[in-house]
């Protein structure tokens, strides 16, 4: 059974690293072996166990996407399994519908309820989602147990078996095939999703919401989508479960079952598709062995395995927070994203003629309570110009930056991008109009490759939905996006590092990756928040050369920077802020000797 656990993690579509051919072959052989298992003369008990592992794996796979990758916690997955199971039980028994129809009834009911819970809770911050899912789980458990039509706590029994093209899939060996086909397809779909435009955005949800919004991602909507996907996988598991058991009752859909799914998730490896299968296999086998062994050890009957599960969880979180998957995953072929050189280029924005005003900030204000952090600042950025925004600490530069990029709404004044009002608009809408930015504290997805991080920048230049990504109908546009990302990396001189995880790069390189990602948005205006901070002298030099080239190509650049030498050498125009107000502007030469600027930096002359 542990052999089978590797099957869904076989590299799908991604080209392997040269020399990994034998590993790829071995992985393929394991899949075949797993498929042939029910034909072999193994004991029935073995097949039954494998069936349950598959059912759990489906649910845990949803949790991998939701919790491991998107960073959203749900303690209510068992309730969604319950909806899938009860929907098919009720409809097949009451109306005599085919299980193939009731599958979709269950999916529909699950999807609607998950969408409702998600829409209500995702827009709130903090711990509302986990709490809401716990409440949901408890409420549904008692609902199942008290509705007459659902058989109260006795549940419903004598469900029909699933038939397919005249075959009866009633036996456990036939169900094995159906269950593991479902697991395999779901894992394939999940891997496809992760290697796509929406997948990269999902991977950014965990800790990168502000960055994703700046790349044009509607993160609130995407969170609901992931929540619905996880619920649908649970619903499929419930449908299979109902027809495997031929009976349903509320017990397997309670809070305790939900917690068990979370433990399987942590044990397998939170953010790994293969970890879902590994975690459910190991925990199922462990539970089985312990239920026999522990009562003998303690000399009395009882659910002692719960204690061991608790211990296992604590030990895993302490010593192997990545779960068990890393130990297995290193024997598998390394996945590497291939860039197709002949891919069709993405459409580009019509270039703005040099000298045209891109950004116009007029009397913009920001009030925090009684404090006027930005007080009537005016500034312009033209195409083909680098403007520096400087000032002592606490002058309001970052706030001004946030007002322009849509992170904060201004309290007064207006901001125009190429003649269009953008003040008060969401960051993602502003990004679509041609404004790209970098962050003062680098915001990259550390465990994702440099290439994919940069490709996130091209998010709003293509339209690929979740369904197309899961079914792999996005390969042509995906190739174009990756090629665009590669070109941007060439531009900043990091093409040879594109397959490395972004987190493994030095800070200076990470800042360049952020610029490459911004370039991937095809911006007319680039906003850089302290691009030179933490860079070594030669890196600053290279950055200055790159930015000058971009200016010469007609891009407008606005940068906030503390490194005066860098600013004075690079910019065409400087705006100086102190205490929320603009006190001076002009060429670097003018600013360097401007009395008000000197006073702002050095203090009042004695």
């Amino acid at each position, binding site marked *: 059974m542990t052999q089978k656990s590797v099957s869904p993690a076989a590299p799908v579509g991604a080209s392997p690293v040269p020399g990994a051919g034998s590993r790829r072959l071995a992985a393929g052989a394991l899949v075949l072996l797993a498929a042939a298992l029910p034909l072999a003369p193994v004991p029935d008990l073995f097949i039954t166990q494998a069936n349950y592992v598959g059912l759990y794996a489906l649910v845990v796979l949803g949790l991998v996407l939701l919790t491991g990758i998107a960073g959203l916690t749900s303690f209510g997955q068992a309730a969604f399994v319950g909806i899938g199971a009860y929907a098919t039980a009720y409809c097949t028994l009451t109306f005599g519908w085919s299980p193939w129809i009731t599958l979709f009834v269950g999916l529909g009911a699950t999807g609607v309820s998950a969408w409702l819970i998600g829409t209500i809770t995702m827009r709130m911050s903090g711990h509302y989602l986990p709490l809401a899912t716990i409440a949901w789980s408890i409420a549904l458990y008692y609902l199942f147990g008290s509705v007459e039509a659902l058989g109260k706590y006795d549940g419903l029994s004598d469900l029909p078996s699933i038939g397919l093209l005249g075959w009866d899939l009633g036996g456990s060996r036939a169900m094995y095939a159906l269950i593991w086909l479902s697991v395999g397809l779901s894992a394939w779909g999940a891997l496809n999703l992760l290697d796509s435009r929406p997948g990269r955005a999902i991977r950014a949800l965990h800790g990168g919401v502000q960055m994703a919004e700046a790349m044009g991602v509607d993160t609130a909507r995407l969170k609901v989508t992931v929540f619905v996907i996880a619920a649908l996988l649970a619903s499929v598991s419930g449908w299979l479960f109902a027809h495997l058991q031929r009976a349903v009752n509320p017990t397997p859909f309670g809070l305790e079952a939900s917690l068990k799914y979370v433990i399987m998730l942590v044990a397998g490896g939170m953010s790994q598709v293969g970890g879902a299968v590994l975690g459910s296999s190991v925990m199922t086998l462990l539970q089985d062995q312990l239920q026999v062994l522990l009562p003998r050890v303690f000399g009395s009957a009882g659910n002692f395995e719960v204690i061991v599960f608790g211990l296992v969880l604590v030990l895993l979180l302490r010593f192997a927070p990545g779960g068990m998957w890393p130990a297995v995953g290193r024997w598998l072929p390394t996945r590497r994203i291939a860039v197709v050189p002949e891919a069709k280029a993405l459409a580009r924005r019509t270039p703005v003629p040099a000298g045209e005003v891109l950004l116009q900030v007029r009397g913009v204000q920001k009030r925090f309570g009684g404090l006027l952090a930005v007080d009537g600042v005016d500034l312009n950025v033209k195409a083909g110009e680098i403007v520096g925004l400087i000032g*002592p*600490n*606490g002058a309001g530069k970052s706030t001004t930056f946030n007002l322009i990029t849509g992170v904060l709404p201004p309290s007064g004044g207006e901001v125009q991008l190429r003649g269009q009002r953008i003040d008060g608009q969401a960051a993602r809408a502003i990004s679509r109009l041609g404004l790209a930015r970098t962050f003062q504290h680098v915001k990259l997805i550390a465990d994702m490759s440099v290439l994919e991080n940069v490709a996130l920048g091209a998010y709003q230049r293509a339209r690929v939905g979740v369904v197309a990504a899961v079914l792999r109908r996005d390969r042509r546009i995906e190739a174009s996006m990756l090629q665009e990302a590669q070109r941007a990396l060439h531009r900043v001189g990091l093409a040879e590092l594109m397959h490395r995880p972004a987190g493994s790069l*030095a*800070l*200076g390189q990470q800042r360049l990756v952020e610029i490459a990602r911004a370039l991937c948005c095809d911006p007319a205006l680039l906003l850089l928040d302290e691009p030179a*901070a*933490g860079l*070594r002298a030669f890196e600053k030099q290279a950055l200055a050369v790159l930015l000058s080239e971009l200016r010469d190509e007609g891009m407008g650049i606005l940068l906030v920077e*503390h*490194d*005066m*030498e*860098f*600013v*004075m*050498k690079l910019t065409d125009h400087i705006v100086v802020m102190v*205490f929320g107000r603009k006190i001076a502007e002009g060429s670097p030469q003018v*600013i*360097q*000797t401007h009395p008000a*600027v*000197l006073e702002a*930096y*050095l*203090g*009042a*002359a*004695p």
Partner: protein
Amino acid sequence: MNAPLFQIKNFGVCYGQVSALQDADLVMAPGSVVTVIGPNGAGKSTLLNGLMGLLPSTGEVIFDGQSLAGMGTEERVMAGISLVPERRELFADMPVIDNLLLGSFRRHRLREKTPTDQLDWVYDLFPRLKERSSQLAGTLSGGERQMLAVGRALMGKPRLLMLDEPSLGLAPRIVQEMLDVIGGLRVHGVSTLLVEQNARAALALADHGYVLENGRIVLQGPAGELANNPRIAQSYMGMTTSDAVAAADATN
């Protein structure tokens, strides 16, 4: 100069591979005010955090004849060093008095009696804090918060007070008020290491000054002389080192 109260030699701090401060040498006489000035990002806060033991550092630090090598932050506080961090880091949901008493936490643990003398002294220095002693720290104005941060540091009975940009975000009049109090600490036997971006105000107060640029001390001298050195303005305004050296040579 008498035996120095505080001396650092060859001091350096790295963030990973990036060196933020290197080869820093600095000496402080007892009862003096020494200022370290420099443009943003020069490494001023890094210097103080390294000296306080909040960042791993290399080189020698000697306080009152005793090496601080290997000492944790708490031990340095016990030895008589206090830091007022750049962001003040007050406990916004606690009243002023509790914030102050936390400053004497370590001494309290040693069963020293309730620090009323110390508290009276701090209230003497900052009468405004006494007026507001039961008010929550989060409701204070910017200047009062800075007073509270300094007052809290003084509750630990330091002999060396390190201040990280006390003028940050404060109106010029309040900055002057603040600096006057700091200058007055000399007579109470408290020496001050003042890190400031506001070079002119800091040099007007200090006895001796050091200029930090790109993680290195590039200039030092008596504060009065340093105040007239054009190199400082050039350093702040990003004129390159070679230009600035030439300009400084020309004026001297």
